[in-house]
Protein backbone atom coordinates (compact mmCIF):
# COMPACT_ATOMS: atom_id res chain seq x y z
CA UNK A 1 0.00 0.00 0.00
CA UNK A 2 1.45 3.37 -0.96
CA UNK A 3 0.96 6.61 0.87
CA UNK A 4 -1.78 8.40 -1.10
CA UNK A 5 -4.03 5.42 -0.67
CA UNK A 6 -3.31 5.33 3.03
CA UNK A 7 -4.43 8.93 3.41
CA UNK A 8 -7.55 8.27 1.46
CA UNK A 9 -8.48 5.25 3.49
CA UNK A 10 -10.09 6.95 6.49
CA UNK A 11 -13.28 8.31 4.87
CA UNK A 12 -13.53 5.11 2.93
CA UNK A 13 -13.21 3.15 6.16
CA UNK A 14 -15.98 5.16 7.74
CA UNK A 15 -18.10 4.64 4.63
CA UNK A 16 -17.71 0.88 4.95
CA UNK A 17 -18.34 0.85 8.68
CA UNK A 18 -21.56 2.81 8.15
CA UNK A 19 -22.49 0.58 5.27
CA UNK A 20 -22.00 -2.52 7.40
CA UNK A 21 -24.09 -0.99 10.18
CA UNK A 22 -26.89 -0.14 7.76
CA UNK A 23 -26.81 -3.65 6.35
CA UNK A 24 -26.88 -5.14 9.84
CA UNK A 25 -29.87 -2.97 10.73
CA UNK A 26 -31.64 -4.05 7.55
CA UNK A 27 -31.03 -7.72 8.30
CA UNK A 28 -31.98 -7.19 11.93
CA UNK A 29 -35.34 -5.71 10.96
CA UNK A 30 -35.91 -8.12 8.11
CA UNK A 31 -35.47 -11.02 10.49
CA UNK A 32 -36.64 -9.44 13.72
CA UNK A 33 -40.11 -8.52 12.52
CA UNK A 34 -40.98 -11.98 11.12
CA UNK A 35 -39.49 -13.73 14.16
CA UNK A 36 -41.34 -11.53 16.64
CA UNK A 37 -44.58 -11.86 14.65
CA UNK A 38 -44.18 -15.63 14.54
CA UNK A 39 -43.61 -15.76 18.29
CA UNK A 40 -46.60 -13.66 19.28
CA UNK A 41 -48.97 -14.91 16.59
CA UNK A 42 -51.15 -17.08 18.93
CA UNK A 43 -51.75 -13.99 21.08
CA UNK A 44 -53.18 -12.18 18.06
CA UNK A 45 -55.70 -14.92 17.33
CA UNK A 46 -59.30 -14.38 18.34
CA UNK A 47 -61.10 -17.42 19.76
CA UNK A 48 -64.32 -18.26 17.98
CA UNK A 49 -67.25 -18.93 20.28
CA UNK A 50 -70.46 -20.79 19.65
CA UNK A 51 -73.55 -21.37 21.74
CA UNK A 52 -73.10 -24.34 24.05
CA UNK A 53 -76.12 -26.20 25.36
CA UNK A 54 -75.62 -26.75 29.06
CA UNK A 55 -78.92 -27.49 30.81
CA UNK A 56 -82.64 -28.07 30.73
CA UNK A 57 -84.38 -24.96 32.08
CA UNK A 58 -87.14 -26.98 33.73
CA UNK A 59 -84.61 -28.62 36.07
CA UNK A 60 -83.48 -25.34 37.61
CA UNK A 61 -84.74 -24.23 41.01
CA UNK A 62 -85.99 -20.66 41.43
CA UNK A 63 -83.47 -18.32 43.02
CA UNK A 64 -81.00 -21.09 43.82
CA UNK A 65 -77.93 -21.22 41.52
CA UNK A 66 -77.24 -24.69 40.15
CA UNK A 67 -73.69 -25.75 39.51
CA UNK A 68 -73.40 -27.07 35.97
CA UNK A 69 -70.34 -28.77 34.53
CA UNK A 70 -70.08 -28.74 30.80
CA UNK A 71 -67.42 -28.86 28.17
CA UNK A 72 -66.98 -27.44 24.74
CA UNK A 73 -64.69 -28.01 21.79
CA UNK A 74 -61.95 -25.40 21.62
CA UNK A 75 -59.29 -25.05 18.96
CA UNK A 76 -56.06 -25.87 20.78
CA UNK A 77 -53.15 -25.15 18.45
CA UNK A 78 -53.50 -27.70 15.66
CA UNK A 79 -55.85 -29.85 17.73
CA UNK A 80 -59.35 -29.56 19.06
CA UNK A 81 -59.57 -29.93 22.79
CA UNK A 82 -62.63 -30.75 24.84
CA UNK A 83 -62.40 -28.04 27.46
CA UNK A 84 -64.18 -28.46 30.80
CA UNK A 85 -65.97 -25.46 32.31
CA UNK A 86 -68.29 -24.84 35.22
CA UNK A 87 -71.06 -22.27 35.46
CA UNK A 88 -73.75 -21.40 37.96
CA UNK A 89 -77.16 -20.95 36.39
CA UNK A 90 -79.98 -19.33 38.29
CA UNK A 91 -83.60 -18.44 37.56
CA UNK A 92 -83.95 -14.97 38.95
CA UNK A 93 -87.02 -13.43 40.61
CA UNK A 94 -87.85 -11.68 37.30
CA UNK A 95 -88.10 -15.06 35.66
CA UNK A 96 -84.97 -14.40 33.62
CA UNK A 97 -82.09 -16.84 33.64
CA UNK A 98 -78.53 -15.80 34.43
CA UNK A 99 -75.29 -17.75 34.11
CA UNK A 100 -72.10 -16.95 35.98
CA UNK A 101 -68.69 -18.37 35.30
CA UNK A 102 -67.38 -20.07 38.45
CA UNK A 103 -63.98 -18.42 37.93
CA UNK A 104 -63.24 -15.96 40.71
CA UNK A 105 -62.39 -12.54 39.29
CA UNK A 106 -59.47 -12.24 41.70
CA UNK A 107 -57.03 -14.91 40.49
CA UNK A 108 -59.28 -17.49 38.95
CA UNK A 109 -60.05 -20.11 41.60
CA UNK A 110 -63.38 -21.90 41.35
CA UNK A 111 -66.05 -20.36 43.62
CA UNK A 112 -68.69 -22.42 45.48
CA UNK A 113 -72.32 -21.62 46.26
CA UNK A 114 -73.06 -21.46 49.98
CA UNK A 115 -76.82 -22.15 50.08
CA UNK A 116 -77.15 -21.27 53.76
CA UNK A 117 -75.64 -17.79 53.36
CA UNK A 118 -76.87 -17.35 49.76
CA UNK A 119 -73.38 -16.34 48.68
CA UNK A 120 -70.64 -17.49 46.35
CA UNK A 121 -67.44 -18.13 48.29
CA UNK A 122 -63.98 -18.39 46.89
CA UNK A 123 -61.77 -20.93 48.72
CA UNK A 124 -58.53 -19.18 47.87
CA UNK A 125 -58.36 -15.68 49.40
CA UNK A 126 -61.75 -15.18 50.95
CA UNK A 127 -63.59 -13.53 48.07
CA UNK A 128 -67.37 -13.43 48.56
CA UNK A 129 -70.06 -12.63 45.95
CA UNK A 130 -73.81 -12.32 46.36
CA UNK A 131 -76.42 -14.26 44.38
CA UNK A 132 -76.25 -11.66 41.59
CA UNK A 133 -72.51 -12.16 41.36
CA UNK A 134 -71.65 -8.79 42.95
CA UNK A 135 -68.57 -8.55 45.19
CA UNK A 136 -69.48 -8.60 48.88
CA UNK A 137 -66.01 -8.76 50.36
CA UNK A 138 -62.44 -9.85 49.79
CA UNK A 139 -59.93 -9.09 47.05
CA UNK A 140 -61.99 -9.71 43.87
CA UNK A 141 -61.97 -6.46 41.85
CA UNK A 142 -65.23 -7.04 39.99
CA UNK A 143 -68.41 -9.09 39.84
CA UNK A 144 -68.45 -12.71 38.65
CA UNK A 145 -68.37 -12.90 34.86
CA UNK A 146 -71.85 -13.24 33.38
CA UNK A 147 -72.01 -15.51 30.39
CA UNK A 148 -74.15 -14.66 27.42
CA UNK A 149 -77.22 -16.86 27.73
CA UNK A 150 -80.23 -17.79 25.66
CA UNK A 151 -83.13 -20.18 26.16
CA UNK A 152 -84.58 -22.09 23.26
CA UNK A 153 -87.26 -24.77 23.67
CA UNK A 154 -86.44 -25.11 27.35
CA UNK A 155 -82.74 -25.62 26.65
CA UNK A 156 -80.22 -23.23 28.11
CA UNK A 157 -77.31 -22.16 25.95
CA UNK A 158 -74.31 -20.11 27.03
CA UNK A 159 -71.38 -18.62 25.22
CA UNK A 160 -67.85 -18.42 26.62
CA UNK A 161 -66.79 -14.86 27.33
Amino acid at each position, binding site marked *: MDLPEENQSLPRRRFFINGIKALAALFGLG*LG*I*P*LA*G*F*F*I*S*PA*LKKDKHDWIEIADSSLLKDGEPSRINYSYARKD*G*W*KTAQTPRTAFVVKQASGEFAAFSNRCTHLGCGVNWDSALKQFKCPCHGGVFDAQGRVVEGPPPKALTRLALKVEANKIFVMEA
Partner: protein
Amino acid sequence: MGRIYQFLDERLNLTPLLRDITDHPVPDHANVLKTRSAFIYCFGGIAFFIILLQALSGVFLMLYYSPTPEDAHASVTYIQNETAFGALLQGLHRVGASAAVIMVLLHMLRVFFTGSYKNPRELNWVVGVFLLLIVLAFGFTGYLLPWDQKAYWATTVGLNMVANVPLIGDFLASALRGGNEMGTLTLLRFFVIHVMFLPALLAIFLAAHFFMLRRQGISRPL
Protein backbone atom coordinates in the same frame (compact mmCIF):
# COMPACT_ATOMS: atom_id res chain seq x y z
CA MET B 1 -25.20 3.07 22.03
CA GLY B 2 -21.96 5.04 22.10
CA ARG B 3 -22.44 5.87 25.79
CA ILE B 4 -23.22 2.29 26.73
CA TYR B 5 -20.18 1.09 24.83
CA GLN B 6 -18.02 3.71 26.52
CA PHE B 7 -19.31 2.66 29.94
CA LEU B 8 -18.47 -0.98 29.29
CA ASP B 9 -15.18 -0.19 27.60
CA GLU B 10 -13.92 1.93 30.51
CA ARG B 11 -14.51 -0.97 32.87
CA LEU B 12 -13.72 -3.98 30.71
CA ASN B 13 -11.24 -2.61 28.17
CA LEU B 14 -13.14 -4.13 25.25
CA THR B 15 -11.52 -2.20 22.42
CA PRO B 16 -8.43 -4.39 21.96
CA LEU B 17 -10.61 -7.52 22.01
CA LEU B 18 -13.06 -6.13 19.48
CA ARG B 19 -10.25 -4.86 17.29
CA ASP B 20 -8.79 -8.34 17.26
CA ILE B 21 -12.09 -9.91 16.26
CA THR B 22 -13.53 -7.39 13.80
CA ASP B 23 -10.57 -5.41 12.52
CA HIS B 24 -8.45 -8.09 10.98
CA PRO B 25 -6.70 -7.04 7.76
CA VAL B 26 -7.64 -9.19 4.79
CA PRO B 27 -4.67 -9.86 2.50
CA ASP B 28 -5.05 -8.63 -1.07
CA HIS B 29 -5.42 -12.07 -2.63
CA ALA B 30 -8.48 -12.76 -0.46
CA ASN B 31 -9.97 -9.27 -0.74
CA VAL B 32 -12.79 -8.93 -3.27
CA LEU B 33 -12.03 -5.22 -3.68
CA LYS B 34 -8.46 -5.99 -4.72
CA THR B 35 -8.73 -9.30 -6.51
CA ARG B 36 -11.82 -10.13 -8.47
CA SER B 37 -11.62 -13.87 -8.08
CA ALA B 38 -11.33 -13.53 -4.31
CA PHE B 39 -15.05 -14.15 -3.85
CA ILE B 40 -14.22 -17.83 -3.54
CA TYR B 41 -12.73 -16.95 -0.15
CA CYS B 42 -16.18 -15.85 0.96
CA PHE B 43 -17.74 -19.28 0.71
CA GLY B 44 -16.82 -20.36 4.25
CA GLY B 45 -18.14 -17.12 5.68
CA ILE B 46 -21.36 -17.42 3.68
CA ALA B 47 -21.78 -20.99 4.92
CA PHE B 48 -21.35 -19.72 8.47
CA PHE B 49 -23.88 -16.95 7.91
CA ILE B 50 -26.44 -19.40 6.55
CA ILE B 51 -25.84 -21.68 9.52
CA LEU B 52 -26.56 -18.78 11.88
CA LEU B 53 -29.83 -18.20 10.01
CA GLN B 54 -30.66 -21.88 10.34
CA ALA B 55 -30.05 -21.76 14.09
CA LEU B 56 -32.25 -18.71 14.48
CA SER B 57 -35.14 -19.90 12.32
CA GLY B 58 -34.83 -23.38 13.82
CA VAL B 59 -35.14 -22.20 17.41
CA PHE B 60 -38.28 -20.29 16.47
CA LEU B 61 -39.79 -23.21 14.56
CA MET B 62 -39.49 -25.23 17.77
CA LEU B 63 -42.10 -22.94 19.31
CA TYR B 64 -44.76 -24.86 17.37
CA TYR B 65 -43.23 -28.12 16.23
CA SER B 66 -44.20 -31.28 18.10
CA PRO B 67 -42.05 -34.40 17.58
CA THR B 68 -44.65 -37.17 17.86
CA PRO B 69 -46.15 -39.22 15.03
CA GLU B 70 -49.64 -38.00 16.02
CA ASP B 71 -48.74 -34.32 15.98
CA ALA B 72 -45.67 -33.74 13.83
CA HIS B 73 -47.35 -33.29 10.49
CA ALA B 74 -50.29 -31.33 11.86
CA SER B 75 -47.91 -29.02 13.73
CA VAL B 76 -45.91 -28.31 10.58
CA THR B 77 -49.12 -27.61 8.66
CA TYR B 78 -50.14 -25.32 11.50
CA ILE B 79 -46.82 -23.43 11.22
CA GLN B 80 -47.31 -23.02 7.48
CA ASN B 81 -50.95 -21.99 7.50
CA GLU B 82 -51.91 -20.52 10.84
CA THR B 83 -48.98 -18.58 12.27
CA ALA B 84 -47.74 -15.15 11.24
CA PHE B 85 -44.65 -15.49 9.01
CA GLY B 86 -44.66 -19.26 9.63
CA ALA B 87 -44.57 -20.14 5.96
CA LEU B 88 -41.67 -17.70 5.52
CA LEU B 89 -39.62 -19.12 8.40
CA GLN B 90 -40.32 -22.73 7.51
CA GLY B 91 -39.39 -22.03 3.90
CA LEU B 92 -36.26 -20.19 4.98
CA HIS B 93 -35.20 -23.11 7.13
CA ARG B 94 -35.83 -25.62 4.36
CA VAL B 95 -34.11 -23.65 1.59
CA GLY B 96 -31.35 -22.68 4.01
CA ALA B 97 -30.62 -26.33 4.69
CA SER B 98 -29.85 -26.93 1.03
CA ALA B 99 -27.97 -23.66 0.72
CA ALA B 100 -25.78 -24.57 3.70
CA VAL B 101 -24.77 -27.89 2.16
CA ILE B 102 -24.06 -26.21 -1.19
CA MET B 103 -21.96 -23.44 0.37
CA VAL B 104 -19.98 -25.88 2.51
CA LEU B 105 -19.22 -27.99 -0.56
CA LEU B 106 -18.16 -24.90 -2.55
CA HIS B 107 -16.01 -23.81 0.39
CA MET B 108 -14.39 -27.23 0.47
CA LEU B 109 -13.69 -27.03 -3.26
CA ARG B 110 -12.09 -23.60 -2.76
CA VAL B 111 -9.85 -24.97 -0.03
CA PHE B 112 -8.96 -27.91 -2.23
CA PHE B 113 -8.15 -25.94 -5.37
CA THR B 114 -6.11 -23.30 -3.57
CA GLY B 115 -4.20 -26.15 -1.91
CA SER B 116 -5.02 -24.63 1.48
CA TYR B 117 -5.38 -28.01 3.16
CA LYS B 118 -1.61 -28.54 2.99
CA ASN B 119 0.84 -28.24 5.87
CA PRO B 120 0.32 -26.55 8.33
CA ARG B 121 -3.48 -26.63 7.80
CA GLU B 122 -4.08 -30.39 7.62
CA LEU B 123 -5.85 -30.38 10.97
CA ASN B 124 -8.27 -27.72 9.84
CA TRP B 125 -9.12 -29.86 6.83
CA VAL B 126 -9.81 -32.77 9.18
CA VAL B 127 -12.03 -30.58 11.35
CA GLY B 128 -13.66 -29.40 8.11
CA VAL B 129 -14.52 -32.97 7.14
CA PHE B 130 -16.32 -33.35 10.48
CA LEU B 131 -18.13 -30.06 9.81
CA LEU B 132 -19.30 -31.40 6.46
CA LEU B 133 -20.57 -34.59 8.10
CA ILE B 134 -22.36 -32.58 10.77
CA VAL B 135 -24.06 -30.37 8.19
CA LEU B 136 -25.16 -33.47 6.27
CA ALA B 137 -26.44 -35.06 9.48
CA PHE B 138 -28.51 -31.93 10.12
CA GLY B 139 -30.04 -32.38 6.71
CA PHE B 140 -30.74 -36.09 7.19
CA THR B 141 -32.33 -35.77 10.63
CA GLY B 142 -34.25 -32.61 9.73
CA TYR B 143 -35.76 -34.19 6.66
CA LEU B 144 -37.74 -36.67 8.77
CA LEU B 145 -39.31 -34.08 11.03
CA PRO B 146 -42.35 -33.05 8.87
CA TRP B 147 -43.34 -36.75 9.05
CA ASP B 148 -44.96 -36.80 5.63
CA GLN B 149 -44.61 -39.53 3.01
CA LYS B 150 -41.41 -38.14 1.55
CA ALA B 151 -39.85 -37.77 4.98
CA TYR B 152 -40.86 -41.25 6.05
CA TRP B 153 -39.59 -43.02 2.96
CA ALA B 154 -36.41 -40.99 2.63
CA THR B 155 -35.51 -41.97 6.17
CA THR B 156 -36.45 -45.59 5.52
CA VAL B 157 -34.00 -45.61 2.63
CA GLY B 158 -31.34 -43.72 4.58
CA LEU B 159 -31.51 -46.13 7.50
CA ASN B 160 -31.37 -49.11 5.15
CA MET B 161 -28.19 -47.62 3.74
CA VAL B 162 -26.81 -47.44 7.27
CA ALA B 163 -27.78 -51.10 7.71
CA ASN B 164 -25.38 -51.96 4.87
CA VAL B 165 -22.34 -50.95 6.87
CA PRO B 166 -20.26 -54.13 7.25
CA LEU B 167 -20.68 -56.12 10.49
CA ILE B 168 -22.29 -53.46 12.69
CA GLY B 169 -24.71 -52.07 10.09
CA ASP B 170 -27.88 -53.61 11.49
CA PHE B 171 -26.98 -52.59 14.99
CA LEU B 172 -26.20 -49.02 13.90
CA ALA B 173 -29.45 -48.73 11.99
CA SER B 174 -31.56 -49.93 14.90
CA ALA B 175 -29.71 -47.65 17.30
CA LEU B 176 -30.54 -44.69 15.07
CA ARG B 177 -34.06 -45.93 14.48
CA GLY B 178 -34.64 -46.66 18.14
CA GLY B 179 -35.68 -50.25 17.38
CA ASN B 180 -36.48 -52.35 14.35
CA GLU B 181 -39.45 -50.37 13.09
CA MET B 182 -39.68 -46.68 12.35
CA GLY B 183 -42.04 -44.88 14.69
CA THR B 184 -42.38 -42.77 17.79
CA LEU B 185 -38.82 -43.34 18.98
CA THR B 186 -37.32 -42.69 15.56
CA LEU B 187 -39.02 -39.34 15.20
CA LEU B 188 -38.19 -38.26 18.74
CA ARG B 189 -34.52 -39.17 18.53
CA PHE B 190 -34.09 -37.61 15.11
CA PHE B 191 -35.59 -34.47 16.57
CA VAL B 192 -33.32 -34.49 19.61
CA ILE B 193 -30.26 -35.23 17.48
CA HIS B 194 -31.29 -32.38 15.16
CA VAL B 195 -31.86 -29.73 17.84
CA MET B 196 -29.49 -30.77 20.67
CA PHE B 197 -26.66 -33.14 19.75
CA LEU B 198 -25.74 -31.71 16.36
CA PRO B 199 -25.80 -28.03 17.38
CA ALA B 200 -23.48 -28.83 20.28
CA LEU B 201 -21.10 -30.75 18.02
CA LEU B 202 -21.27 -28.02 15.39
CA ALA B 203 -20.39 -25.33 17.93
CA ILE B 204 -17.37 -27.30 19.14
CA PHE B 205 -16.04 -28.02 15.68
CA LEU B 206 -16.70 -24.49 14.40
CA ALA B 207 -14.83 -23.08 17.39
CA ALA B 208 -11.87 -25.34 16.57
CA HIS B 209 -12.14 -24.38 12.86
CA PHE B 210 -12.10 -20.65 13.53
CA PHE B 211 -9.46 -20.88 16.24
CA MET B 212 -7.04 -22.62 13.88
CA LEU B 213 -7.97 -20.23 11.10
CA ARG B 214 -7.00 -17.21 13.23
CA ARG B 215 -3.85 -18.82 14.62
CA GLN B 216 -2.60 -19.78 11.18
CA GLY B 217 -4.04 -16.96 9.11
CA ILE B 218 -5.47 -17.46 5.66
CA SER B 219 -3.23 -19.44 3.30
CA ARG B 220 -0.90 -17.52 0.97
CA PRO B 221 -1.81 -16.92 -2.69
CA LEU B 222 -1.02 -19.66 -5.17
